[in-house]
């Protein structure tokens, strides 16, 4: 500042010059303020945040698509789906064992002795038998046949089924068939009577 003052002094005395300064004439542009009012809105209720779909809440609807399935235990989308497994191993030829299913088989047992011990069974064929005995004081209850009476070892009446059980002697060579009527004598202590014909 002092240097400027000295410079001005010597310029006026030795060079006759005056330092002329100018002031700007133009005024600053007026500040324009808009009369329009700005409306600010503030929500009264609290802001909602969505953290996940309700579809994946535990126990809710199961979602699946083309084999992909979210387990019902996955609570939200944010939970990562676990993938289990390992890298597929390449097997060398012959390394894998091939199992064969055995063909279905059965055993045959021979037991003719058991069959020989079983009785033959004759049903009551009285309704087909036209030639019936007509004894006095008796009623015919049943007719069983044909029976090879000379080959018979044992006869038993199956009262429950109404059938006659016959045990034959397998060594017998007799082939003469007969039939047996089962009769009941009325008014007698002896209830049943067998009558061979």
């Amino acid at each position, binding site marked *: 500042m002092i240097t400027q003052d000295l410079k001005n002094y010597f310029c006026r005395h030795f060079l006759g010059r005056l330092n002329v300064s100018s002031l700007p004439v133009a005024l600053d542009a007026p500040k324009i303020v808009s009369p329009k009012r700005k409306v600010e809105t503030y929500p009264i209720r609290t802001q909602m945040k969505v953290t996940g779909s309700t579809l994946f809440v535990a126990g809710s609807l199961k979602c699946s698509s083309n084999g992909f399935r979210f387990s019902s235990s996955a609570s939200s989308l944010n939970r990562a789906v676990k993938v289990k497994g390992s890298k597929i191993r390449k097997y060398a030829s012959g390394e894998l064992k091939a199992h064969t*299913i055995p063909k*279905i*088989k*059965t*055993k*045959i*047992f*021979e*037991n*003719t002795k*058991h*069959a*020989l011990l*079983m009785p*033959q*069974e*004759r*049903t009551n*064929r009285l309704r*087909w*038998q*036209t030639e019936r005995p007509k004894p006095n004081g008796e009623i015919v209850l049943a*007719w069983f*046949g*044909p029976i*090879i009476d000379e*080959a018979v070892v044992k006869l038993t009446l199956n009262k429950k089924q109404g059938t006659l059980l016959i045990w*034959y002697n*397998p060594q017998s060579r007799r*082939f003469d*068939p007969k*039939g047996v009527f089962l009769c009941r004598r009325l008014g007698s202590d002896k209830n049943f009577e067998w009558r061979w014909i």
Partner: protein
Amino acid sequence: MAVSNNSLGYLVVDGADGLFRGASLVVDFRGIPMDFRYTDPIRPTRLEKILYGNALEVYLREELILESLVGAIETKPSIWVCRETELLAPLKSITRGRVLFLAPSNHSPLDAAGNVETVAEDSSYMIQADSVSAPLRASFPENTKEDDVKQTAAMLVDAAKTMELLEPFGRIQKALTSLGEE
């Protein structure tokens, strides 16, 4: 294999409740057993059911049980009798002998023992084997000649004089039950 002229062979193949088993009983004309054989019960596994598919039952009944039984019998009967029409054709091809299906009927008696009547509806026959029962319903394998039918019927009439023709089926069933319980 010995051949017995006066004998009947009865065959039963059962597949109830998925359990397959079979038995054969050869009897003389009095019904006295000459040969009795039976198979192990077979229950196919789930894998076998898948692998064999629809052919499983046919394979078990016809190839496995029937063929094994007939092959094991030492006394060859003059007639084979079965109670399933499905077994007629395989039984004929295995035994190459006389084969027929026999079942009871409610048909009214024919005129006399030995009479044979054709049933038009299912090409089966009614055979009056004796005079003291209803005629029996009989079926024969395809292409069986009329003469063979008559000869077989005559043999059945002969057997029915000394035995009840269908009775051995009941005995087989009882034998299988008692052997299964042992």
